[in-house]
């Protein structure tokens, strides 16, 4: 039996997208979606359509930029890449996420003991 697929936590999608772009460099929407599915080993339930408003929001904040380009199989696609301030933001958010995750883990651990 496959474990139930988790919803993407509120606010984590931004971090996931930023991290993906940081790891793989410029990527189109489809590529980002594929990568997320791949990494989460299909445990994460992602409505791929929700990626686009999120990408727009990140772009409006100035953390990523977009450019029309041509994909591997000769298709026109919009490529997103991380900006300098996006990289900074990723570092900050990753740190705060780790801290938060640590706290949660400690909390749960304390509960278990």
């Amino acid at each position: 039996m496959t474990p139930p697929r988790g919803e993407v936590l509120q606010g984590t999608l931004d971090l996931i997208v930023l991290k993906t772009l940081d790891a793989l460099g410029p990527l189109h929407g489809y590529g980002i979606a594929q990568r997320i599915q791949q990494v989460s080993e299909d445990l994460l339930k992602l409505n791929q359509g929700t990626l686009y408003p999120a990408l727009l929001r990140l772009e409006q904040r100035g953390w990523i930029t977009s450019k029309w380009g041509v994909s591997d199989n000769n298709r026109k696609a919009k490529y997103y890449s991380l900006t300098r301030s996006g990289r900074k933001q990723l570092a900050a958010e990753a740190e705060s996420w780790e801290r938060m995750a640590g706290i949660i883990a400690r909390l749960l651990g304390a509960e278990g003991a």
Partner: protein
Amino acid sequence: MSRMRMFGSRLVGFFRKLSSDKDLDAEVRSHLQLLTEENIRRGMSLDEARSAARREFGGVEQTKELYREQSGLPFIDALLQDTRFAVRMLAKKPGFALVAILTLAVGIGATSAVFSVVDRILFRSLPYPREDRLVSFGLLAPIESHDFMLGSSYVDFRKQPGPFEAITSMAPGSIDCDVTEQSPVRLSCALVEQTFLPTLGVTPILGRNFTKDEDRPSVPRVALLSYSLWRSRYGGDPGICRKTIFLDGSATQIVGVLPANFEMPTLGPADILLPLALDEQQQRQSQPGRVLRTFARLKPGIDVPRAIAGLQPFFEQALGGAPPELRKEIRLSVQALRDRQVQDARLASWLLLSSVIAFLLVACTNVANLLLARATGRQRELAVRAALGASRSRLVRQTVTESLLLGVLGGALGCAMAQVLLRLLVSIAPEGIPRLEQARLDLRVVAFTFGVALISAAFFGLAPALQHPAPELLIGREVRATVRNFMRQMLVSAQIAISLILLAGAGLLLRSLWNLENTPLGMQTENVLTEAISLGQYRYPKVEQQLVFFAELEARLKRLPGMISVALSDSLPPSGQMRSTIFAAIEVAGRPHASEGTGGAVGWRAITPEYFSALGIPIIQGRGFQKTDRLPTENTIILSETLARKLFPNADPTGQQLRLFRMQSPWRTVVGVAADVKNDGLLANADPEFYLPWKNDPVEFPSAAHVIVRTRMNPRAVAAWVRSEVAELDPTVPVTVETMRQRVGKLADRPRFNAVLLSLFAAMGVLLAAIGMYGVVGFLVAQQTREIGVRMALGASPAGILKMILASVARWTFSGAAMGLLGAWLSARLLESLLFQVRAHDPVLLGLAVLVLLAVAFVAAWIPARRAMRVDPMVALRYE
């Protein structure tokens, strides 16, 4: 920072909506394509792959919607959409939109314009710091319209000013003075005490005030310039304070410049302030001394009644020597400076303000009524929208947007109208309304009236959206909104009530104006031309020169063709401003002098013999003046009828001997009695008066002169000749030529202004009430079409239907009229002092106003009600 960038790119997105939509489309399409290809690779069929891709992607439209919300400014998007829709809705019913917008515009425009005028008079603070502490004080006597003090008592009083922190005085009025250097010019000079500026709290913007030493008699003269004189004549010269100018030929050192917003507390003109230079010694000796206008600043914590109480002992002392009868007529007065300035303009201002506010109420009611009517008609539309999933808040937003659009359009038009109306008001306003020239369109007022209109529009526009639309509406059945109908009828009743009050007030003022314009003057004004001429000190320093000028002018005018009579006089009826004395000062030969108080004012004029024929004043007894009466040896006098009766109740006045002013003046013989003439304005009863012959005697020469010409020709044509005759004698003399009719007409200017404005508001109010009535009845008929059809099918006659509708109209019309009658009755009291020979509660006028209003209301009701009579039962039953 990041938030600002967010807003910035959203703003950009807002304008780039179309291209970004296309971008997204392309992106989504390629994404789906890739997903599909991937699925095919995994071994799905094309159809399977496609639907799986769609599943994985999620809702395409939802994505686009979310994306759009993220990319633009959704609030503004919705607003734009609502506005577009509102514009379409309004355009669909242009009649409704036009009436609503015009009503709002007229209401906002009229209110803003009138308020901008009266605001200066009633509310705006005077240009002095802590102006609420400033008062005008002194004695009030029957012979003077303003309070005054006499120099002999003032010089003592100023040493111990009792309840006042500071007091000051000035000479009444301003004097003409000429700057006699380079290009000479006639200016107004005011004589003020050294304490004048400090008491008012005014500091010169340049230089300084006078010193105590400069405010003494026989020291070198100093002067303060008004800001406008400093700018216009001296080009704003910063070094002006060291300069010396020549005033009426004498050297005067300029010591300071007044602030730009400075104005005299009397509102009189003043280009230059000069020291009053009161001679204390001389004032004390020469009882009663100079007449002074006195102003003061109250001590903190002291109000006007307490100041009056505090002044009482001093007042008793100052009048100690006067006979008790005289003291009865004189009273002490302390009044706020603003009250002194506005005097009778105050009541008229309140009248205008309240009538325009009443009018605004009628206008708002009308708009409310229109919106309610339309709202009822749109219930079905709202029900459909609600059924299709529009949320309540969306419906509210939609209806409010429509109302606000009306409000904004009406308001914008109203602002333009206010500007035009204000200009109109200022141009038709009579002279003597204080501060009229300062009236500007007041933005606060515009904002306020705008707000009132918007709120009333929004409020009444909201009503339909707030209640949940009944589902029955969807199948086309009307739900009778009885509550709302009741509200609409109340609104029309209120309109009728307010209009009636306005109409009754306008009726009273118009009637009073008619009385005023037809009041007998006691003289004939047809074909009479008058010229007011004043000769400057500079060109005519000697009285003899002035006399020569007038003698020459008289002779020249007599030679003109078409002249019947040419006369000179120092003043002209019917305006006041003649020279006056008191009755007690006239001494009759052979009669002991009775000291019964002042006996009231007695006016007098110096005239040439043709005065009576020029003005058509009949001589009742004896004769008029003759040429010989102008000889220095002759001492004759002519009395007015009232004065003659007062002096000689039982005897023939002609031949009696009189002496004037209880001084060394000669005994004069009464040679005639002239009929009474209105001589103190149109409102007041005629004062008793007497006439002395105009002699070529420097001692008795009056300061100003009027030439009166009666002609056989059109006086307007003669005016040009008269002007050229004056110009030939001396082209620099300013002369005001007016026909007698114009002069008299001017006196009724102010009542006419009030009456015209109030009538205008009343007429517009009645018109709006009629529109409201028309709308409500038309709506009722439309709503009851089915009921009417049933009634007619059951045998009701058209006349019966009409009666049924008019009966319901009558109910709220009469209730409105009753309220209005009560209101008119109560408010008439306030008008009382503006009325001339009309009773405030004139039953005929009030009845007439009611009749007019009822007639208008029924005509407005009858037109749509007739439609009910023509209802075809078959059509009506299938209606809806």
